């Protein structure tokens, strides 16, 4: 039976060590810190990812799916990383190194280190179910806490979106809505309540968000979005827009501004039992005008106030929008870019259709003909949609 020292010596003879100078010349290598969380918190190599030794086998493919990718492993003093290197060789990684001298020598030699940003113990508890997901983890949660998301509308779609975004720890939420909470809203607009009847929806939503998560800064705009105020509002540097507007002029206005300012829009719309969701990422995918170059005539564009809507439908569609928004903010997954998701609540059925960029799109096409705000009410025809 070998002692620890003998086992380490044996393992080191079976793997390759590399010094700091050699490590920095490795092209395209993934650097993995296999130390424990408390050691990582005290600083790590720049660009390294943290996978504690105990999780290495289960998580390594997430950071290095291709086994020909060179991998540099390090720990404090090149013991744990030697065992880790042997494991990766057994998993089929072809170019694996253990950093000689580990983090201790790296730091002692005055080489650059990065101090990780960390979550407070309170935030670690609040977001623990996110932190447990490898795709999110602490890094992803910090991105969510840094994110600034603007909600157009605090109604059917904006209610679930604002609550779930707040619960997820989106650091700053902007909310635009000019309306007042009334009784007919409560069948579906779950951010509002009997207590806030008669108050502005933005204030009511802010109250609900703050009751849920005081980490979130809420910026309210109690106004109707127009060509006159949109630039002022978008100057507050939003990363992402969640569009839950209730009328066509606002939809086209939001589209044009978002294309010009390069802000992704998570689009959702609902009517009776059916909903549509997609993501418009300017220049990477189609925009709203590529999907619908023209709004329908007024008689084919009834509002929910005219035609009704199943109360839970905005909950489903607004939650799907939130899912897209969180993915975009955390930089994970495959967003609904170039795909329009159709939901039918009666059939409980999802369908997906492809949307392509139009070369002749007047806003994001090759030769744009609309380069400044137009009269959106006139474009959509007086009375089109719900105003």
């Amino acid at each position, binding site marked *: 039976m070998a002692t620890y020292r003998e086992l380490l010596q044996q393992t080191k003879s079976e793997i390759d060590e590399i010094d700091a100078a050699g490590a920095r010349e490795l092209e395209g290598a993934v650097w993995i810190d296999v130390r424990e969380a408390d050691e990582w918190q005290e600083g790590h190599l720049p660009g390294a990812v943290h996978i504690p030794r105990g999780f290495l086998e289960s998580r390594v493919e997430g950071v290095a799916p291709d086994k020909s990718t060179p991998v540099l492993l390090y720990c404090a003093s090149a013991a744990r990383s030697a065992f880790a290197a042997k494991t990766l060789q057994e998993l089929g990684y072809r170019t694996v190194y253990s950093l000689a001298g580990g983090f201790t020598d790296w730091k002692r030699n005055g080489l650059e280190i990065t101090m990780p940003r960390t979550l407070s113990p309170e935030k670690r508890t609040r977001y623990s179910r996110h932190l447990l997901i490898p795709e999110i983890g602490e890094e992803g949660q910090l991105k969510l806490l840094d994110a600034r998301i603007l909600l157009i509308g605090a109604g059917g779609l904006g209610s679930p979106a604002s609550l779930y975004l707040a619960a997820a720890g989106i650091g700053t939420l902007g909310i635009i809505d000019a309306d007042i909470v009334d009784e007919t809203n409560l069948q579906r607009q779950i951010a509002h309540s009997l207590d806030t009847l008669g108050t502005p929806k933005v204030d009511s939503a802010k109250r609900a968000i703050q009751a849920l998560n005081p980490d979130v800064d809420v910026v309210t705009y109690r106004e109707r979005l127009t060509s006159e105020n949109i630039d002022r509002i978008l100057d507050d540097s939003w990363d992402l827009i969640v569009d839950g507007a*209730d009328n*066509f002029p606002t*939809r086209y206005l939001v589209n044009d501004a978002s294309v010009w300012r390069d802000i992704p829009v998570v689009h959702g719309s609902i009517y009776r039992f059916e909903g549509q969701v997609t993501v418009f990422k300017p220049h990477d995918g189609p925009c709203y005008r590529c999907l*619908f170059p023209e709004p329908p005539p007024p008689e084919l*564009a*009834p509002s929910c106030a005219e035609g009704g809507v199943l109360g839970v439908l905005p909950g489903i569609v607004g939650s799907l929008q939130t899912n897209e928004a969180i993915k975009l903010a955390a930089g994970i997954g495959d967003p609904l870019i170039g795909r329009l998701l159709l939901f039918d609540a009666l059939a409980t059925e999802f369908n997906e*259709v492809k949307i392509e960029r139009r070369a002749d799109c007047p806003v994001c096409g090759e030769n744009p003909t609309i380069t400044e705000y137009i009269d959106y009410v006139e474009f959509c025809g007086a009375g089109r949609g719900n105003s």
Partner: protein
Amino acid sequence: MSVVRVPPVLREEAGGAREVEASGATVRELLEDLTLRIPALGSRVYGDGELHSFVNVYVDGEDVRTRDGLETPVREGSTVILLPAMAGGC
């Protein structure tokens, strides 16, 4: 025969139906057949030999405007979706 999905705003024209049937080897033939069967519905999306500009038509998930327009082939059993924009977020 193909299944044509009717958007909620056009269900009244289709007598309340969520899906109707129509036949044709191309989108044009299918819409002409649809117009014969259910004139109120067909005329909402198709007229004067053209697709109305505010309606998107998808054959098996693809926008016919990105394929061959009205000449886009329709297979037996294809699903055709008629889709005007919806604005509601309410």
